[in-house]
Every structure is written in structure tokens, then in C-alpha cells.
């Protein structure tokens, strides 16, 4: 087992790190204060190919593997969580779903422009009244001739006002014996008549991003936009989360690293009682714990990425990585603030933003509580992963790099 990164991975990491440092870091505090996503971010991520990083070249992607996606997310979130959120919804939840469940026509129609960054993609699962209880969703999709008619509202949708395509989940069969079997997935084009959206402000964190609501009022969606079969919606949504939460795990790992770096820098600079505070053991302890969290989180997400590369089902491993990294990133940010003392409490420094950003990741893509239930289920043998009709394709450079 070679835990080192190949020179190719190193180059990818360096490139994304440079982009983040040069083009996002200088103005991120401002954007966070204004609670607005800087307009250049999505176009630049598209231009640079980041929005298509792990998709096959023949679908307009850059032909890198799933481990690269994780590494990229780690670098993006080390600058700001909002950059990684873009990857979570555009790539993890939406594009990879098209790769896994889409027909060839759907991949050509929707995945290719997404991979090229020509279209921005989002994920519409959560509703005002349904979060963890996915099967309790109220949105409907009724057959009408050759189309479906969508009605319903989704909330807490990242890139709600910016996405061209949203993977939208709705109930097609209200009479299903098990509500889980009554859901279907659709690729909603947001310029369709009847689609409205708006931004949500006042979030504790992820303020330099774009989060909002999307509402469908009698929106017609052709059958060719239905992803997977009727009734497969819940299974599709869960498999999307395997990929979305992988990016969250990788991103949170980057956030831990950012907290560690900030803590080390400040501890060396700041003097108290005649010496740098890095010399005090209680400060050192905080740094040591961050190192431990970082290394463990990194190994967990990289393992999940390798399993995706190998075409192995990784629901358990990804859930574990996400739960661990997100909880650890919140703790790391809190301790990073403590190291900074009163300065940590001010937005003059980055660490308070890290804390506010970290808190959200403990809630979305499966709350930490949901993950604990999952892990207990696996451990007790009460939870088993059934085979899926469509699996995420294993990474094959010969196919990805046409």
C-alpha cells in the first residue's frame, strides 16, 4: 500500500491550490460579509476544467479519477467551503448521478455541458418539511401525456439561483405501499416555465456561496428527462449522497488543515508571558489533536476514493469519512479560535469563518446522527447495502482518457 501521492496528483493539487490562493482567497472575506457568491467563481471553475475533473473525456470531462476529486475538494475547502459546495452539488450529487444512472442520450444532453462548465448543476432533494426524512417529501410529479408535471418546493438548495440543471426528486406514485418506492428523479432545466428560485440569506455559515429555494409550479418535464426508472428515485438519491458526502468528507479534511495551519502560524507569532504561545503545552495539545484529526480524516476519504476507483460499493466507508471529518472540522475550528484568543472572535482572521462554515457540514448530506445510525446498523448487521441496478463506473484511464 503506497500512501504517497503520485506526481500527477501533486500537480493537480498544486494547480487548484494556486487557483484558490490567487483568485479566491484575496476577496473571500469580503464575499462572506456581503453574503454573496463572487461572480467570477463558477465561470473560472468551469474554464479551468475543475467542474469536470473526474468525468470521462468523451463526456467533456478532464479524465481524472475519483481520488483526484477528493484531493481537489480538500484544496478548495482549505480556501473556503463555498468552493467545495460547488463541487458537492455540481459534481458529486448531480454529474456523477448522470454518469451512474443516466442513459447515453441523457449523458450527451446534460452531462457533457455540465462537464465543460457550460451548465451549472444542482441537487433538489431537501424540502421545507423533509430533510432526513427523504421519503416524506411532498413534491409531486404527475404523468401528463408524454411529460411529467412537477409541483413542489425544495429548500436549502446550493446554487439554487445559479444552476441550469437540477436533479429533482418527486413522488410519482402516491399510492405506493412503501413511500420509499414512490419517488422518481428528474433532470429539471431551470429555464422551464413555472420554475422560480430565490436566495436564502442569514445563514450562519457558507455565506460566500449561494443557497436558496426552488419552486416548481406545474412545470412540464419531458419523459426523456426522467433519470432512472419510475420508483427508483429514493435509491438514486441515496447513491447520489455516496458521492456528495465523499466531497464533503474531503472538503472538511481541507478545513481541518486550514485550521491547523492558521493555529500554527498564530501560535508562533503571538507572544505572551515573554515567549511565543507555541511554547505552551495546552496550545500544543490543540495543534496535536488537529494533526490527528487531519491525518485520520484524510486516510478515510482517500480510502473511499480508492474504492470508487475500483468500482466497489463504498456507502459505509464514505459515511464514516463524512461523519468523522465534519465533526472533527468543527472541533478543530473551535480550537483554532481559542488559539487566536480574542482575535479569533473577530472576522479580521479566518478562523471564525471556518467555524461557521464547519457547522453546516454536520447537518447536510446526512446529519452526524444519521451517520451514527448507519454505522451502528452496519456494525450490528441490521443494515446491508443491496446491489444497485446501476453502479458508479469504476475508474479506467483507458476509457476516461479517450
Amino acid at each position, binding site marked *: 500500500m503506497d500512501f504517497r501521492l503520485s506526481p500527477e496528483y501533486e500537480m493537480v493539487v498544486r494547480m487548484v491550490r494556486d487557483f484558490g490562493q490567487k483568485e479566491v482567497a484575496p476577496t473571500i472575506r469580503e464575499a462572506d460579509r456581503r453574503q454573496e457568491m463572487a461572480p467570477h467563481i463558477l465561470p473560472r471553475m468551469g474554464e479551468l476544467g475543475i467542474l469536470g475533473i473526474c468525468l470521462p473525456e468523451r463526456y467533456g470531462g478532464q479524465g481524472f479519477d475519483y481520488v483526484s476529486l477528493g484531493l481537489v475538494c480538500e484544496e478548495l475547502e482549505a480556501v473556503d467551503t463555498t468552493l467545495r459546495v460547488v463541487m458537492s452539488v455540481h459534481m458529486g450529487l448531480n454529474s456523477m448521478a448522470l454518469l451512474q444512472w443516466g442513459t447515453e442520450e441523457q449523458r450527451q444532453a446534460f452531462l457533457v455541458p455540465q462537464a465543460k462548465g457550460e451548465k451549472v448543476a444542482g441537487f433538489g432533494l431537501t424540502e421545507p418539511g423533509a430533510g432526513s426524512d427523504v421519503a416524506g417529501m411532498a413534491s409531486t410529479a404527475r404523468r401528463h401525456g408524454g411529460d411529467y408535471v412537477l409541483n413542489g418546493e425544495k429548500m436549502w438548495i446550493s446554487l439554487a439561483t445559479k444552476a441550469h440543471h437540477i436533479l429533482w426528486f418527486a413522488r410519482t406514485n402516491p399510492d405506493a405501499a412503501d413511500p420509499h418506492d414512490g419517488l422518481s428523479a428528474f433532470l429539471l432545466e431551470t429555464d422551464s416555465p413555472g420554475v422560480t428560485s430565490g436566495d436564502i440569506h442569514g445563514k450562519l455559515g457558507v455565506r460566500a456561496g449561494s443557497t436558496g429555494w426552488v419552486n416548481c409550479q406545474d412545470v412540464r418535464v419531458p419523459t426523456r428527462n426522467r433519470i432512472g426508472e419510475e420508483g427508483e428515485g429514493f435509491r438514486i438519491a441515496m447513491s447520489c449522497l455516496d458521492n456528495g458526502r465523499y466531497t464533503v468528507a474531503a472538503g472538511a479534511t481541507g478545513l481541518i488543515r486550514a485550521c491547523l495551519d492558521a493555529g500554527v502560524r498564530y501560535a508562533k*507569532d503571538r507572544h505572551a508571558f515573554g515567549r511565543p504561545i507555541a511554547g505552551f503545552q495546552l496550545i500544543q495539545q490543540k495543534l496535536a489533536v488537529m494533526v490527528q484529526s487531519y491525518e485520520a480524516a484524510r486516510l478515510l476519504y482517500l480510502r473511499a476514493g480508492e474504492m470508487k476507483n475500483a468500482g466497489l460499493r463504498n456507502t459505509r466507508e464514505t459515511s464514516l469519512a463524512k461523519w468523522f471529518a465534519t465533526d472533527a472540522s468543527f472541533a478543530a475550528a473551535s480550537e483554532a479560535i481559542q488559539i487566536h484568543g480574542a*482575535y479569533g472572535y473577530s472576522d*479580521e482572521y479566518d478562523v471564525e469563518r471556518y467555524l461557521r462554515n464547519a457547522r453546516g457540514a454536520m447537518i447536510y448530506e446526512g446529519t452526524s446522527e444519521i451517520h451514527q445510525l448507519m454505522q451502528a446498523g452496519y456494525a450490528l448487521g441490521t443494515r446491508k447495502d443491496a446491489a444497485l441496478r446501476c453502479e458508479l463506473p469504476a475508474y479506467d484511464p483507458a476509457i476516461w482518457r479517450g
Partner: protein
Amino acid sequence: MADKIFVYIDHYNGQAVGPSWEAVGVALGLGPSLSSGVTALVVGDGVRGLAEEAITYGATQAIVRESAELKDFRPEPYADVVTGILKEHQPALLLMPTTGRTRELGAMVAVDLETGVTPDAISLQVDQGAVVATRPIYAGKLLTQEVARERRPQIVMIRTRAFPRPSPDASKKGAVDAAAAAPPPPATQVLGYKASEAGVSLTDAGVIVSGGRGVSNNGRLTPPAEITDEKQKEIWRAQQGFELIRQLAASLGAAVGASRAAVDAGYIPYVNQVGQTGKVVSPDLYIACGISGAIQHLAGMRTSKTIVAVNKDAEAPIFKIARFGVVGDLYDIVPAMTEVFRTRLGK
């Protein structure tokens, strides 16, 4: 028998480049054991006056080679002329100031004569008949000694202001060997000149003058009657203060910086902010005016080679990391500094 030392006098627009005289001083200082006289070398068009000036700075004699074609500096013809002269006179050492021109010139002459060239020397020692130069590497993080043990001439370019400039003495006399040069026509053509853009970038600046909160602190100034709002009056006063800072910066060819407090208070745009959340700078000289020295600011400028602090408050933390400090009112001190630097540095 002692060896000859040649000093190349770099010039632009008819004026000698000041550090050329520092090079003359270095040559003179290398001691009679190494020098049987210092020969100033001037190449160009209409530059005979520079040769005479070199004599007043201490050169024993001067060689001038002129041609209309040498009016604009181009390295190839200048190198041809200089190489020819060095081959004829066989000096042990060629000294030059370090400029964009002399770097090219020294580089090419070194190739012609198969010898070493050392730019940016900050000190010189004579060791076993050779000049050992010390120069910075890794952006000054380290110093290396460098010597051409056997090749002659040694070519050494001194760093600007690393050595003292001698004072000229109009009574000094020396022979000037002036003649026409006949360089082959250069392949390149100078099409023209353009003024450089105004303003020095903070991160590249060798000298930075920064203002802080204290810049607005002048009760003696009366804002114009139209300004009634207290906050606007404060900003007006601060802008007067920053104008003084700008003038001091201009006298030093420096960039203008500011502390976060000054930026937040609206005195000056964010692009000038130095500090953890602004730019991190590492100039040779950082002059902090009316800046208390909060850690956030220090993090942005602490690695400056020399820090000068001007502040009314003798207890201000900035004095703990400053090399030189002045306790006083920056409204008095800063203009006085501008006056002195303008005179002494002639900018």
C-alpha cells in the same frame, strides 16, 4: 608589480549612474598592493565629461571611447568596445556598479574573456592576489563568497549603496585618453523610450512608508468649512496626513502602505493595506508613521530588514521591533524627513 584596476562608469542620458563613483571608491580602497592606479572607462557618445568627472572622484586616469552609434546603450557593441580595451590593457580587475545595463555588459565581456562575473557584491577582500567578493543568494537569505582564482580580469559588479560614495574633488587631475570607437553596427535598433508607470508595487518595493490611525491625529489642522460631519473631518485630516506620507515616499522612491486601522477608518484604500489580512511585505526599509504596532500589522511587515517607527506614544509596541525610533508628532517629523531625503538622495 601591481595590477591595474578598471572601473566602468555606467551612465544614462548623459549622467553617470551614482554607484559608478562608489565603484571608484572601492577600487581606490583595494590598496596599493593590488592597484597601480584606477582607470575609469567610459563608452558612449558625448561622454567625455564623465571621464573628467571620474578623475574628480579619484580615478588616476580615464579612457573614453565614443561613437555616434554608441549613443544608446546596447550590450553587443558596448561589449565589443570594452572587451577590446581590456584585451589591450590587461587589467587584473574590472569593477562596475550593478544595473540592468552593466549586468548584460559584464556578462558578455566575461564570455569574451572566458572569465567569471560577480554581480551585486556587498563586500570585497583581497586573498592571495585575488579579489574575493561576497554577494547575496536566495534573495539575501544567505551570502556566498565568489572568486575567479586564475582568470583575469576578474569582473565584479558592486551592489548599489553597499559601499560609500567618495566626495568629488575638482582639484584632482588625471590623463584622459579619448578616441573614437568603431564598433560593428548593432543588430538591434532602439525605437524609443517610454516613461515608467507611476507608483511602486507594495510587494516589490524596496522601501515602504506606511501610515496608521495616528495619521488623522492633528488637531492643528482645520478642515474646510463645507465639511460639517465629524467623521468626514477626521477623514479629511487623515488624507492630509497621508499626503505627507506620500511625499516622504516619493522622496525615497518608496511605495505607500497603511495599517488596517487606517483602511477600516476610510483614510486610504484596502489595496494599500499591509498586514496579516492585507499584503505581506519584506522591504529593505519600512517606515511606520502613526502605527501602534498591533500584531496584525506586524505579521505583514516584520521581516523588513530595517524598521523605522515614528509615533507620539513612547510606549507603542512598534518600538519593540523597530531598529530606529522617533517619539514625536508625525506632522512635524515626516515633512522634515522628506526635506532631508530630497536633499541627500537627490530624487
